[in-house]
């Protein structure tokens, strides 16, 4: 295939926009799995829950789904805090978090899915936004607003999370609990409380990412399962617990997918993405920016 400049530029733009969306989906996993060691396999389930909440309000009142998700993110935060409490008292405190905790989150994923099926049915849902069908063009390069708007908000959210973790007392406590919970306890800080709030933050980001998802593509209750591999791959590729790493990993996978689809055939995209993951881990087992 001829490599034209326009095709190349469009592939780069599409990859970056996709990467921005992947970063929003994965930043919560980077916190819960990367920093807190909680294998929250139900994370995509909360993303889909976020999609449906954005859908209901958009459908009934016409509000922008992303604005809705930001507005209801405190509710997701509270939901996350409650969920961590259950997880802590049922599994983590007893040292049974590995296998039983995993089963717990699997259960949460399926319960969320079934609850959505029973409430909304199984049809695909989409939202209508003013920018959904608009594409801004700069010469031959296209910027579909359906992807640009989630990308911009995602960047604000991911960078915001990074700044929060590195520039606030609580944020530094989260980073500390990721490194050594015992040392934190010796300093008089309750690591359970820190983990609870950090986990709650991860679920709040999932709610916002859900709005991005339904702006980008139609959503049905079971679609979350398709993103389980992706969110963990981004987290591991970027480096466990590194928010900048998550962002970088998301861009790498987004660009890999876009370039493979454009130049070699889209069916190779997952193989190339996961091949990159394996190659990176072979040479840098801690991920791109992991310590």
């Amino acid at each position, binding site marked *: *295939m*001829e490599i*034209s400049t326009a*095709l190349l530029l*469009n*592939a780069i733009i*599409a*990859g970056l*926009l*996709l990467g921005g*969306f992947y970063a929003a989906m994965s930043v919560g996993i980077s916190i819960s799995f990367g920093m807190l060691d909680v294998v929250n396999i139900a994370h995509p389930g909360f993303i889909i829950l976020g999609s449906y909440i954005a859908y209901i309000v958009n459908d009934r009142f016409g509000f922008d789904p992303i604005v809705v998700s930001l507005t209801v993110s405190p509710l997701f935060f509270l939901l996350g805090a409650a969920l961590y409490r259950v997880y802590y008292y049922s599994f983590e405190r007893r040292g049974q978090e590995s296998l039983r905790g995993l089963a717990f989150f699997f259960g949460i994923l399926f319960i969320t*899915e*079934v609850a959505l*099926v029973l409430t*909304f*049915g*199984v*049809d*695909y*849902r*989409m939202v*209508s936004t003013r920018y959904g*069908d608009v*594409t801004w063009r700069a010469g031959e390069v*296209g910027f*579909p607003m*359906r*992807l640009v708007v989630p990308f911009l908000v995602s960047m604000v959210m991911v960078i915001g999370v990074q700044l929060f973790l590195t520039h606030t007392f609580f944020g530094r406590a989260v980073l500390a609990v990721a490194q050594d919970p015992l040392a934190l306890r010796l300093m008089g800080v309750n690591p359970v409380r820190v983990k609870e709030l950090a986990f709650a933050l991860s679920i709040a980001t999932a709610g916002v990412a859900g709005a991005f998802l339904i702006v*980008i*593509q*139609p959503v*049905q*209750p*079971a*679609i979350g399962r*398709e*993103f389980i591999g992706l969110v963990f791959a981004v987290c591991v590729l970027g480096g466990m617990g590194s928010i900048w790493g998550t962002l970088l990993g998301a861009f790498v996978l987004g660009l890999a*997918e*876009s*370039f493979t*689809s*454009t*130049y070699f*055939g*889209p*069916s190779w*995209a*997952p193989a190339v993405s996961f091949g990159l993951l394996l190659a990176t881990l072979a040479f840098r087992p801690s991920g791109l920016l992991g310590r």
Partner: protein
Amino acid sequence: MLGNSVLTALTRAALFIGLALTGTALAQQPLKIGFGMSLTGPLAGNGKAALIAMQIWAEDVNAKGGLLGRKVELVYYDDQTNPSTVPGLYSKLLDVDKVDLVVSGYGTAVIAPAMPLMMQRNMAFMTLFGLNVNSKFKYDRYFQIMPAGPDPAVDWTRGYFEAAMALNPKPSTVALVGADAEYPHLALEGARAHVKRLGLKVVYDKTYPPNTVDYSPIVRAIQATNPDLVYLASYPPDSAGMVRAANEVGLKTRMFGGGLVGPQFAALKTQLGPLLNGVINYEAYAPDINRKFPFLDQFLAKYQGRAVKEGVDPLGFYLPPYAYAMMQVLEQAIKATGGLDQAKLADYMHTYEFDTFVGKVRFAKNGEWSVPRMLTVQYHGIGGNDLEQWMKPGHVTVLYPSEYKTGSVKAPYHENKK
């Protein structure tokens, strides 16, 4: 002597009462029809609509006294739109639930994995919208209710390529694209056969993973090859993704579409709205030819109100009438043969014509419709996202087959956007 007579009489009476009771018990046992259906997963919207149609059929039959004097009971499980669940699910239906008959769930992907078991147990297998599944199995008790015709792979895509070759000047290049899944693979196989027959040059022939998020790189790669025609075979989420991407990229080609699953249902019709303008696709029905489908009204009267209540496809033009018709075929075969003998049922279904809510149905030797009737259409003039416009004539032009034709292709594709 007297004692012996009394004993014999008593034995006979007991035997008679026993047989009568057994007969009564059997008559009271429901006639179980088992199947898997996609009630969750990507095709759940379609599966649930089909299930409602089948439930309406069961209620109708039971209201008339059932079949063979027994009430009909549908025994079904959610196959999660996951082919790997299907063999186990049908084994359970046959061995644990002891169903009397089985039918398929919705779609190629879940019909194919049930076939080996059906063949092993010699079951007459009535199936719902599988594309060319029997081409490899060649099972003589397989029947398929989708009007794809006796050579499904080729007949399925014939309308698209017949309409394309009617363009002036004739097209010379084609891009073929579809999802990595059972149905798109089979549809693309048929498309390749037409491409070869017509001497078209293939400039792009690739598939994509079904969970792709952004389809614009694919559409741009297709655009870079500058094809006259783009044939797409896709499932609902990627149908939406590809149509959106074609609009965003501003795809310039003479014809786009062909085999999109999804726009037949109200959900995608209303959600995509004007983005569908210019897209070529297949449909089982179009409001413009309402007069040629008088039988459909009987079904829609039963279906539409209930579908709205249950939150599934409120139109019901595409899959639900055929799901009902599938059960009607089975019903008529059971009544005519007077039993559940699988060989007799299959033999009857091969031999006779059936009168159903989708019209007269006759099966070819391979279990497909003896005459194809799927419509190739082009969407146009769609002004918003409301459902009502899809119920009225004027937005779905039938291009093929000729006996239903209401117009010709409006090409190029991108001109339909203006």
